[in-house]
């Protein structure tokens, strides 16, 4: 809320990423503060709200054009977090597992590299959603509000996890799948979005050439791009004449 006038450059306000220097120098030096600040690498064109939290011991990297809303929490205690380009991470999203104990044990369990969270490009994560370690989210996926991606889940490109849905551990979702319905288990439904030309009896009777279902997705991604542009002006330190 308080405009940090001094920081015109992209990098997030000092309080969380002091360890990460201006652009991309992953310095794996968890400061000896009670909550270890993760080594964060942020692309200069990303927009990070000043109240987003980056905690953990493993590196966190955020790609170009990505928007991180306020109060998003990204934890890298169990492994690195890699967020690709042009993503939108909404408020109160929790990526990664919070520290096992609030007591400040830095890296209690860091076997080698841990399990990474990989979020590809153009992914949208809705408010209060949570993504647990080991998730691999491919490009153009939508994870809606309050959804929960459990450990070691792989979500194919252009898939959508609707609001409040929970993806059980180790699930592999194919691309273009929509998971909707209530919570997990029996209430949950899935369907596959049409991406090619569909020739249904009605359309053939119509006698018109159909559009590919893909154009809808293209339109959505276009809208997403516009949304990112709008957000990049609104999110983050107000008053700081934004960059680029």
């Amino acid at each position, binding site marked *: 809320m308080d405009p940090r006038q001094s920081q015109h450059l992209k990098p997030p306000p000092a309080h969380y990423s002091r360890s990460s220097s201006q652009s991309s120098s992953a310095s794996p030096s968890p400061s000896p503060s009670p909550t270890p600040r993760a080594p964060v690498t942020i692309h200069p064109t990303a927009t990070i709200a000043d109240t987003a939290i980056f905690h953990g011991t493993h590196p966190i990297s955020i790609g170009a054009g990505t928007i991180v809303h306020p109060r998003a929490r990204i934890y890298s205690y169990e492994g690195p977090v890699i967020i690709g380009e042009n993503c939108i991470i909404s408020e109160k999203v929790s990526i990664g597992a919070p520290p096992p104990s609030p007591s400040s044990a830095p890296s209690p369990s860091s076997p080698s590299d841990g399990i990474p969270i990989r979020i590809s490009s153009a992914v949208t994560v809705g408010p209060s959603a949570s993504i647990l370690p080991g998730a691999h989210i491919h490009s153009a996926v939508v994870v809606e509000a309050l959804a929960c991606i459990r450990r070691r889940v792989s979500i194919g490109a252009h898939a959508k996890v609707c609001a409040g849905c929970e993806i059980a551990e180790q699930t592999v979702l194919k691309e273009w799948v929509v998971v909707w319905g209530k919570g997990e288990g029996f209430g949950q439904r899935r369907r596959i979005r*049409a991406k090619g030309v569909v020739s249904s009896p009605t359309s053939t009777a119509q006698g018109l050439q159909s559009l590919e279902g893909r154009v809808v997705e293209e339109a959505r991604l276009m809208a997403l791009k516009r949304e990112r542009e709008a957000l990049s002006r609104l999110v983050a330190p107000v008053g700081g004449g934004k960059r680029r």
Partner: protein
Amino acid sequence: MSRPFPYAYLSCPCADTPMPDPSRKRRSRESPQKPNPEQPHPPKVPQGNQEEDEEQEEDQTFDPRSPRSNFSLYPPEQLLYCEDCHQIKCPRCITEEIVCWYCPSCLFETPSSMVRSEGNRCARNCFNCPACTAPLAVTTLENVTGGGSQQGPWVLACGYCMWTTLDIGIKFDKPTNIRTQLFKLTDSSRGRQMSKTFTDLKSPLSTYASIDEQFAASSTESKNGDLAEPAPLDPEAQFAALKNFYKNQIAETSSSPTDPLGPDFGAGFSSPGALNRIMSLYTSSSRLSSLYGGTSKKPKSKPPVMREALTASEGLKTPAPDAEDTIIQRMVSDDCGWDGLASLEQRTFQAPDARFVEDLLPLPVLLRTKRSKRCKSCKHILVKPEFKPQSTRFRIRLIALSYIPLPTLRPLVPGAHGGLPTVSSSSLAPNLDALPPLRTVQLLLTLKNHMFDPVRVTLATPSVTPGRVASKVTILCPQFDIGANSDVWDEALQGTSVGDQRASSRGGGLYEKVAEAGKVWDKGRNWTTVVLEVVPGTLPGGTAGARRRVQQATGADVGGTTTRARGGDGISGDDDDGSDDDALPALDWSGQGQDPGPQPQQLQPDEDVLEIPVFVRMEWDSDNQIDQEQSVGRQNADTVKRELAYWMVLGVGKINPKIV
């Protein structure tokens, strides 16, 4: 919607009163002409009241667990009140009349003349997703395909599951009149052709003799059409054809002209003559026909046999010989698979032969209605909303809460700053979702009067709740007065002050306040609070003797319950002490152990929910018209004594299975 604890439900008296019961009317009338056994001695102990009521219909304890109770218990705000019957009215005691139809999505009204022709669905652009039922939005694809000039193409897209009409290969040229466009698309060439055919064939060619001509006619028609073979009708046309065909069939085969055959099917088939005719079809053998009378006596009146639809124009649909195979092949093909099949829920709202997701059509939104409500017995209007769909006002709204005191229940937190209504952070407040058995809980029951007359209230409750889990209940002050409600403006102006006063009284001076028998806990302008003491019973499973559930079903046993309850009352003090000392053998409440046979030890569903039936009797002096807002002469001297009585159920909480 289940509610969080604590809650209060009211029981509509209609549940145990059959409709034409005069006693119900009598008891709800003015009380003077009615003997009142309780009047002379107001019961000190609430259950005494219970026992003395024997000759009234409330002599039986209301059992909130009885299967029938579900049908009479309502949250107070759902109940209405009939000023003519002087009785609470639940949704079962009323009839409804439709005031207007409107689309819940665009909130436009549909004139009643159009409702039927449009299939009770919105004729505008409102559709539901056939895949997930979320509303569809009309969106343009201009961003990708064309310039930003708001040109098409347009699609219907689901913002939830991302279904679009492109999934079924449909797009629209303009963003308006989508339903017409969609109809044209789906009802294209074939459907159009056939429906025209159908309308041409409206003449009732429905006897055997004419079939051949009919065949000829339809075949010539179809030769004229674009399609060589008469393609199957689309479902709507097929339904219309079938309906028309059978209507004619009924008209022609009905034996007597006096048969009250309506224009519709239903009337024709439901008439006794039609039934007789149908029966006679199957009872040509002598024995049965003699059973059914008439037919054997006048065999000449045997009605002409009704035949079935035989041609496509009559609505007959014969699937192609290989139809099944094509479907199966399509199912097993790679691009279909499980995900390509429409689910049962999806098919419910689709045409009968929609099998695949590509067959799913957007569903025009079903209309909703605004309804006025009448009392079933006196036809008095109880609720009349404004006609406009968007309006939330009512012209008439006689809700029960304007007449009966609104009950609210909350735990009494000793020494805390005010009783918090829900499970609070205060450690002192009992956790209503896990009440420790055999530990006394004190609850505050507030009754708030919305009438403009002061009310005298008598509460009564069985000392032990019915059911296997016997919880002991005592109302410390079963009889009290509630002040009159004053003007709405007074309330609005005093709203804060009342709250403050209440809060201060709760937070401040009441610190050491102890609930006393016979005294109200707190009192305000139009509300009174009394204390309930509840000792939750123990759940079966841990103890040896559990009472058989079946016993509560019959009335006699309910009486027995009460008797036993009194016994339980006697030893209850011991039980309390026992529980405090952790000496638990005293769990055998009121001699349940004598019940023979192995008892089901498992907890029945919701048996751990502690619900208290409370009988409420309210008496007040009223003007002849209750609605004083309308009556001009307030100084009207002839007041009438009125009374109203009903059961309510207080949901206190859930009993913890473990004894703490």
